[in-house]
């Protein structure tokens, strides 16, 4: 077993970095800002709520999972985010505010999945898996 970092390691690392930076740049270009968007809220694989988000809506939703967890969602100024959650890691809260087509929030412990879909988008790159 080789003890030190060598040129093949460097090559592997450089390759992975280049591929992923390209993927991130490509993925970022897919986000489009729009005003006609719907937030689809899934809990444990079921679509529990569809919410048309406009800039003048302000609302709070609490989604409870079957396992007893909860996520409190806040919608304001055309953005949606998680204000409070029962999960231990709070990763869903750290994912911040989402507002653009294709952006999403996931909470693995509570099985929550929120996704924003731009309804005026006709290219059809995002379709919802039933």
């Amino acid at each position: 077993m080789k003890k030190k970092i060598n040129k093949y390691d460097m090559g592997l690392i450089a390759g992975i970095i280049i591929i992923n930076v390209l993927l991130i740049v490509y993925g970022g270009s897919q986000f489009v800002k729009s005003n006609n968007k719907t937030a689809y809220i899934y809990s444990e694989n079921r679509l529990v709520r569809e919410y048309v988000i406009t800039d003048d809506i302000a609302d709070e939703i609490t989604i409870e999972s079957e396992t007893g967890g909860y996520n409190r969602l806040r919608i304001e100024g055309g953005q949606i985010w998680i204000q409070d959650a029962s999960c231990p890691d709070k990763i869903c809260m750290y994912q911040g505010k989402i507002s653009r087509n294709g952006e999403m929030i996931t909470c693995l412990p509570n099985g929550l999945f929120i996704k924003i879909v731009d309804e005026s988008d006709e290219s059809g790159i995002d379709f919802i898996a039933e």
Partner: protein
Amino acid sequence: MNTMNKTQRYIFLSLLTAAALILSIIEGMIPLPYIAPGAKLGLSNIVILSVVVVFGFKDAFLVVVIRSILLMLIATNPITFIYSITSGIVSTIVMALGCKYLKNIFSLIGISVLGAMAHNSTQITVAAILFTTMDLYYYLPILSLVSIFTGCFVGYTAIFVTDNLEKTLLKLGREA
């Protein structure tokens, strides 16, 4: 390690399992800036990779499975367990294959990066199956970039760990 008898082997593996378990728990206590869901240090991978190198795949597999079960009982929940055991097993398989077939090309750092990538991909695949959506693969590039840094760190540490572990085991073999 043929110099060890069965008991010594079991004792060493239990100690290493305990070390992996404790590293997993400590890792949960370290506050990290949020990057993407599922991004973490993977400190217990240091132990797993060392076991793969020194003891071989079968023992590493045991260590991973036992660590995941114990971690579920101590610190996390059954849902996290599904993620940790599947990705743990797949990354162990990848690292073992890497140690077997690629050890003349890559150092432990490269193998550990491959293991970390396998870990992330499996985690996202499991999440995509549980959530029945392919959208989660959007996180894969970000997680892969993070895994390069953690993978380098884990690999570099594992070089020192395997070095010392092999010396200790040799000494043990001479005394026995």
